[in-house]
């Protein structure tokens, strides 16, 4: 064994062995997560691909000034936060309701339903976009066929921002609710059966048991999950807004969120400085949000803390 391995009785540690196990992950993390950090200065530069990030000229806060003096920051922030709030409320409400319903049927039936509810979660947003296309395609889509049969004119779905105010929440719900419902259902079946037995003896009916016992018992879990979602409220599901909408520019008033703006500013508009400024703004606010919500989660349940 090496000199690093101290095989004394009070510290049963082979340090070299542990470092060996740790190093691959540390190297990857440093390489992928920490090394890009200096690149944040791009937000304060007039970035020029030829000159690179160190030699490009400083621009001070002008990228941020531009973002916040035009309506860009306000619009993408509003879209990001309001969409996430709608998604959070909708997903958790539906998921809890589904979990309560699942709790009423046999385990075998639960397995069947769970498999189906789960499957959208396993599809990528690219595949989901194909499913969307089948529904929303301009002249041939299923929805327009239905509208036509009803004697109404078809809608050019990918060019009408208003209709996506309804489509986006449904698409998000479709992909996520099974996942969240499973979490709530698992919590429900873990509840103490004596609670229900006592309620039964006192003559409570199914609804009363669901509302008086199940829901209050879930409260802590709801707070934790919702808080975790709120911690991520400044980030959005890029796939939903980019792939599922087929990146249709006509929909931007409704679909443009911080992540899609950063992506577009970087790769389409060719303005890395602006993109980096928007990205840094997002990262900083997200950091504060995660710290605050993590604090709340820790208060609710110390076992759920990460940091």
């Amino acid at each position: 064994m090496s000199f690093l391995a101290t095989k004394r009785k009070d510290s049963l540690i082979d340090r070299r062995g542990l470092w060996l196990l740790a190093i691959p992950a540390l190297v990857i993390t440093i390489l992928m997560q920490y090394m890009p950090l200096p690149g944040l200065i791009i937000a304060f530069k007039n970035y020029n691909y030829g000159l690179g990030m160190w030699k490009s000229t400083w621009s001070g806060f002008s990228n941020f000034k531009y973002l916040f003096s035009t309506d860009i920051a306000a619009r993408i922030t509003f879209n990001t936060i309001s969409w996430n709030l709608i998604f959070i409320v909708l997903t958790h409400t539906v998921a809890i309701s589904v979990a309560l319903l699942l709790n009423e049927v046999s385990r075998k039936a639960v397995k069947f339903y769970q498999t189906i509810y789960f499957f959208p979660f396993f599809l990528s947003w690219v595949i989901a976009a194909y499913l969307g296309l089948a529904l929303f395609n301009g002249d041939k889509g299923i929805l327009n066929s239905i509208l036509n049969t009803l004697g109404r004119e078809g809608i050019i779905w990918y060019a009408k921002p208003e209709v996506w105010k309804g489509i986006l929440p449904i698409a998000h719900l479709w992909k996520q609710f099974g996942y969240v419902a499973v979490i709530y259902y698992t919590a429900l079946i873990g509840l103490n059966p004596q609670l229900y037995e006592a309620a039964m003896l006192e003559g409570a009916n199914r609804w009363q048991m669901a509302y008086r016992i199940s829901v209050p018992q879930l409260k802590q879990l709801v707070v934790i999950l919702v808080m975790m979602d709120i911690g991520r409220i400044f980030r959005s599901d890029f796939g939903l807004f980019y792939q599922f909408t087929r990146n249709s520019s006509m929909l931007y008033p409704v679909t443009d969120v911080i992540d899609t703006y950063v992506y577009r500013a970087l790769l389409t508009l060719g303005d890395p400085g602006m993109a980096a400024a928007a990205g840094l703004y997002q990262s900083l606010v997200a950091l504060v949000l995660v710290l605050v919500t993590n604090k709340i989660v820790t208060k609710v349940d110390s076992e759920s803390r990460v940091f």
Partner: protein
Amino acid sequence: MKRLYKKQNFGSLGIIHFTLILLALVCILPLLFVISISFSEESDLIKNGYSIFPRTFSLAAYKMILENSEQLVRSYLVSIFISVVGSISALTISSMIAYVMTRKDFKASRMITFLIFFPMLFQAGLVPFYIYVVKFLRLKNTLAILIIPYLVTPWLVLLLKGYMSQIPKSIIESSWMEGASELTIFIRVIVPMSKSALATVGLFYLLQYWNDWWLSLLFISDDSMQPLQLLLQRILSNAEFLRSSLFQSASGVAVDISKLPGDTARMATALLVAGPILIVFPFFQRYLVRGITVGSIKG
């Protein structure tokens, strides 16, 4: 004992099942539409639009794809390579670091834990990452950049760590007494005892690599290296891409593009890509469900 309260009249149970079945339909109907379109005749779609049930039945789209699809086969190979190599490496590296984190008696383990999980709090973001990969690492158009970024995914490491920390310390200590090194303990004791957690995390990694389009969207422009998801995305954003690139006859003989299946082939391609996941996932659901519940509650 829970059976006791599971008694109820058939009426309300019927309503509950009705609601649950309705939801299930909403979940799978779009997929059924895609299947129906892929088996339709192209000319019928052009004339009458998509329909919920196929009015005609044709295998032309599938035949076309399977006959002329060098690009599809290539992308399949790329995706399989990334998924297999990626998830095996990720699982190995992640379980190793997760074990080190559980060794509270190892002084550096706190600092290591912090280093690995800090990125959950703060990241450089897309722009610094993109420029770093393209200009500094020069990994554009390589398979490596489709694998490396996901090798250490913090929440999956967290899941493994949670599981491994439940393994009694006395077992590790007794192996120590027998003179085993940390590496031996990890391989002979920890890995066999964490099998179900490893299965869960391995599946999540597999899913992540198979479904990923984000990294290829950013870094792959070379057709020979595009994974399935990127190929699909290009076909989606440009209907002609399928006809022109996918069915470019290999022998150089010009194909009458207008006669090729368009929409039907698009949907058929999507199904051929989603297929493996759809067939495989019900069998592994048990592990995934466990991962989700443990991960979110204990996470």
